């Protein structure tokens, strides 16, 4: 059974069809990528899977369970995590607290218990703190633990967002343009980080414009154009597909 599957997924914005009857399945294991020219529907697909948008038609299944009607937070609790194209960090929190928030689905979230300082919660707090520190180290941000997110540089925020997503120990990690806006060195770091994540057993789906990065990282690639599937396959297959080349050349996005 696929870890993630969408069937007949369609989404309209006003008169515009952003995603058109898309079928797509993500198997457990490797790194997947979704590419396509601007406006191809990549982020829309992510937002539909995450539950930010409601589909106009179609179904979304996680591990065979139909989640189409579930709100975002319930899907997250099933093991779906993501990063955002335009960074959505908690600016009012420190680096460490950002990551600790990622632990939410594994922690006792009772308000009453928290107020009364129940031992179980204090214990979870200590364990969570340790886990978050490990995760910060994993993405190489130990030094930023006590800095408020609003004071962090862009490259750091990118990695912090991944650490936060990892904290929820997702089955499926969706990364929306993880390399956008990064310089070559930083891109190298992100590349290594994604490999590390995948090696640790998390399935990764990423949307990315940087073809070098995608071709290097991904084992399977879905190509979207105008909300439709243009091609799907290994990097080599996709590279060889004439339709893909046409679509990219047509919009000036040479790979």
């Amino acid at each position: 059974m696929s870890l993630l599957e969408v069937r007949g997924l369609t989404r309209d914005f006003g008169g515009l069809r952003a995603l058109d009857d898309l079928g797509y399945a993500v198997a457990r294991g490797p790194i997947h990528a979704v590419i396509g020219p601007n406006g191809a529907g990549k982020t829309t697909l992510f937002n539909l899977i995450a539950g930010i948008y409601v589909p106009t038609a179609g179904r979304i299944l996680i591990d065979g369970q139909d989640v189409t009607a579930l709100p975002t937070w319930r899907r997250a609790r099933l093991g779906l995590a993501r990063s955002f194209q335009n960074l959505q960090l908690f600016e009012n929190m420190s680096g460490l607290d950002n990551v600790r928030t990622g632990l939410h689905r594994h922690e006792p979230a009772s308000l009453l218990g928290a107020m009364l300082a129940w031992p179980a919660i204090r214990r979870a707090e200590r364990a969570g703190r340790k886990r978050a520190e490990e995760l910060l180290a994993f993405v190489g941000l130990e030094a930023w633990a006590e800095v408020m997110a609003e004071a962090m540089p862009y490259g750091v925020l990118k990695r912090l967002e991944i650490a936060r997503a990892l904290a929820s120990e997702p089955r499926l990690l969706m990364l929306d343009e993880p390399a956008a806006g990064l310089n070559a060195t930083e891109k190298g770091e992100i590349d290594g980080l994604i490999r590390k994540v995948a090696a640790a057993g998390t399935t990764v789906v990423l949307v990315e414009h940087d073809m070098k990065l995608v071709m290097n990282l991904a084992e399977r690639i879905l190509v979207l154009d105008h909300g439709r599937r243009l091609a799907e396959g290994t990097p080599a297959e996709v590279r060889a597909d004439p339709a893909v080349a046409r679509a990219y050349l047509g919009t000036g996005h040479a790979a």
Partner: protein
Amino acid sequence: MAEFLQFLFAGLTSGAIYALVALGFTLIYSSSHVINFAQGEFVMLGGLATVGLLAAGVPLLPAALLAIVLTAAAGIALEKLAIEPARNAAVVTLIIITIGASILLRGAAQLIWGKDYHRLPAFTGETPLEIGGATLLPQSLWVIGVTILIVLGLRWFFGRTLLGKAVLATSHNRLAAQLVGIDIGFVLLLSYGLSAALGALAGILIAPITLTSYTVGTMLGLKGFCAAIVGGLGSGAGAVVGGLVVGLAEAMATGYVSSAYKDAVAFVIILVVLVFMPSGLFGRRGTDRV
């Protein structure tokens, strides 16, 4: 029928008053995304300043114009001295600043003009017009007429003039507006000045009907805020519709249900509208873009 007409006139008059105040809210919100809780005080200032100038022997028209200019100056000062220095503050901080401003303005008005209430003479007499068995004061027509003129004027300003378009551009995207060379500082000053002037004009127009004193701003401000929200913040037409909805609902509820809870009507409407339309009747519905 006569009874219905009477309620209708009352509702239209009150509605037009609320709409005038709401337009002031809308103007400032459009350019700066600040809700100015001192908006009602501009209405108060306009009315009281005119009363004061009249008492000092200035004829009505120059007194009214001078009062509008003075109030506009107060609006500009508010922007320059209080809003501008705190432009990066949180929404609620800005709310407290404008509330502070309204306390300050009320305190100043009470010192200058005392605590008595005053009346301005009606522009064209006090003889009520009789229409279908119901009566309407000529001053109500002034209020309704000027409201219509202002809405048309604002439409022209935003649609046809460069300055108006600059204000709109600032409202949509401040950074982009700055990049195309719009002087944001000036646009903000302008919209506060204009909004204060609008408030003052409202204050002068309604003083013959509602009388005026240093306390009239509070409730008029709240009702105006209500109207602006019902209409959907930032929409001029919405502000007018919102004002009329609130005014008419109050009058009809009083007339056909009960007057005991009349002053709650506006707020019940607010809750009902917002539960079903979280951005008001004409507000932009935003989707999070992530």
